């Protein structure tokens, strides 16, 4: 009994809670400043929605900020729609396909995960300006870049679930007369539901958060995303409008995650720990 109390309030617990505070409180402060009625970014005066709505430099009124927000959302949405099907197919195919080419493809899929982002950013920038010059520069190239690094995350997430599902359901379906494709469609895919959902959310979040690759492929003001905007106005901007922008995106992401959590909880099978999905996907 005393040991449990000791561990709950012991030094490790203190460190952990201090860390959590250190990790989250600055963000809360930044959010609070976004509601600042004054122009200061470090001292809070009073509550106001000025930087969201009223002020001409606010998120709603300022064209550049609004465009950045819309660009981020459109990119993330389209990235989800492209990367997840590609990744799911790749995951299923890689898991079942035997042979040396399969192992090579598997390694190829893993390499983007371990490559530093600046390398991928430079590589994509060079390839779109030197090789695939026909591709419309800007939104399209950014989308292609986002999908490229997202596919690997999707594969890793889906594969974890594939492994725990195993083959028995599909084989049972085949025994009952279904073709492989039918077994895939009607048995495997529904079972992959939670993983596909998690993959959608992770793709959405990583695309919204992406900075390096987006900034290498962006062509200017019309194709900026929120992280680029935060970065470029971060030190120069003397108002909290960029805080407001970040808060809006944060809210969108949080809503998406919350909805996933609710859906996943309903679908949860025994032993499917969300943290492992996230942990593996890193």
């Amino acid at each position, binding site marked *: 009994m005393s040991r449990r109390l000791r561990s709950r309030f012991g030094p490790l617990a203190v460190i952990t809670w201090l860390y959590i505070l250190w990790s989250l409180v600055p963000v809360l402060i930044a959010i609070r400043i976004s509601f600042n009625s004054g122009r200061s970014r470090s001292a809070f005066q009073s509550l106001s929605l000025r930087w969201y709505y009223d002020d001409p430099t606010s998120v709603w009124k300022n064209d550049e900020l609004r465009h950045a927000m819309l660009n981020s959302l459109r990119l993330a949405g389209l990235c989800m729609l492209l990367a997840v099907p590609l990744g799911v197919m790749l995951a299923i195919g890689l898991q079942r396909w035997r042979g*040396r080419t399969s192992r090579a493809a598997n390694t190829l899929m893993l390499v983007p995960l371990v490559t530093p982002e600046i390398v991928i950013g430079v590589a994509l920038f060079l390839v779109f*300006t030197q090789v695939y*010059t026909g591709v419309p520069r800007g939104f399209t190239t950014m989308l292609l870049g986002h999908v490229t690094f997202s596919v690997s995350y999707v594969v890793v997430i889906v594969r974890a679930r594939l492994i725990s599902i195993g083959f028995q359901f599909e084989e049972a379906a085949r025994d009952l007369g279904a073709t492989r494709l039918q077994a895939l469609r009607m048995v495997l895919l529904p079972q992959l539901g939670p993983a596909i959902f998690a993959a959608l959310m992770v793709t959405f979040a990583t695309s919204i958060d992406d900075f390096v690759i987006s900034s290498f492929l962006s*062509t*200017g*003001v019309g194709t900026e995303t929120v992280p680029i905007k935060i970065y470029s106005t971060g030190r120069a901007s003397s108002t909290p409008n960029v805080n407001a922008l970040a808060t809006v995106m944060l809210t969108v992401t949080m809503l998406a995650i919350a909805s996933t959590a609710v859906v996943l909880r309903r679908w949860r099978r025994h032993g499917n720990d969300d943290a492992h999905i996230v942990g593996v996907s890193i």
Partner: protein
Amino acid sequence: MPGSRRRFLAQSIGFGTMFAAGVPLLGACGGDSASGKRVTKAIKDGLSPEAGPLRVFNFADYVNPDVVAKFEEQYGVKVEITTFDVDAEAISKLASGAVEVDVHHSCAPATLSRLIDGGLLQPLNPSYLTNRGNVLSAFDDPWYDPGSTYTVPYTVYSSGIGYRADRIDPAEIEERGWDIIWDARFKGVTSILDDYREGISLALLRRGITDINTTDVDLIEQASADLQELVDLVNVKVNITGYTDVPEGATTLAHTWSGDMLAGAASYLPEGTDASVLGWWFPKDSKGPVGNDCMAVTSNASNPVLAHLYINFLLDAAIAEENWYWNGYLPPIEGLDAAYLVGQGLTPPNLESAVLTDDIIKNGLTYRPLDLETDQVWEAAWSRFTAG
């Protein structure tokens, strides 16, 4: 197993052949090299303006947003401004197609020939530029653009030292000149321009070397070593934000452009601070860098008529004055000279020296193009400094 080794070998050879075959394909995929010919044909006369949006390529905070808004209203189009930090970045982005714009708002004369010879700019059609006559005659046939075929000057400025007059005695700066940047008393509040030509020139000028286009490797290396001293001596910052940093007090001594101080005085002082806290120094004998940025229309502009109209709009005397008041950089317009601007009280008296006189324009040092090897030496010297 021997069989698998043979199969592996076969696979590698197969892969290698596929690869070798694919390589020429990659080469073919690449777009045409941008070192195409000069563009010599301008657009035709009498065309009507396009619908826009007009895409403009410029330094950040270099054109008055109110002026842009007036243009938008007058022609019923939207203007999108894409920014760059350094001239070299602008060229590289235009050349690689990473950025697609209609107007290059700030071409530097030293690198203009690259843009022209590389086919990135198109000649201007004078019929759209009705305000062309407003430009100072000194710029009718400049060395960098014979016959003013491709460009129109946008601003004239000098590179000097902007400072907080409330933290350092102006007399001291007058006496020490460029060397003040190397003063350890201003640790943490000193900045120099993030431009390799300007930075190396600063070190050269400090030593009394006025050839800012030197090809002497030893001098350049010495300049680089001098700059490297700054890193530990004064924690030097390298940026182009002097126009906000000095008024806001984050920087006391800034190696920056003349317009920055005037813009700072006009638009970036915090509430309650008076323009008298700002100061500007430039060599009395005018032996300091003087530059001018030019406007041009890109060769692949999708709104060339609008581009011409925009350039023309900025050449209007009243608009140019309004623009000047906001960004501080002198437009080379007839009548908008130091006498007028100071006489009208548009310049704080302590910053009069930041307005360029005819004398400075005539006698100042200009940046000329460097050949490839020299350029690489300059760049390497600069990167040795920024590497810390």
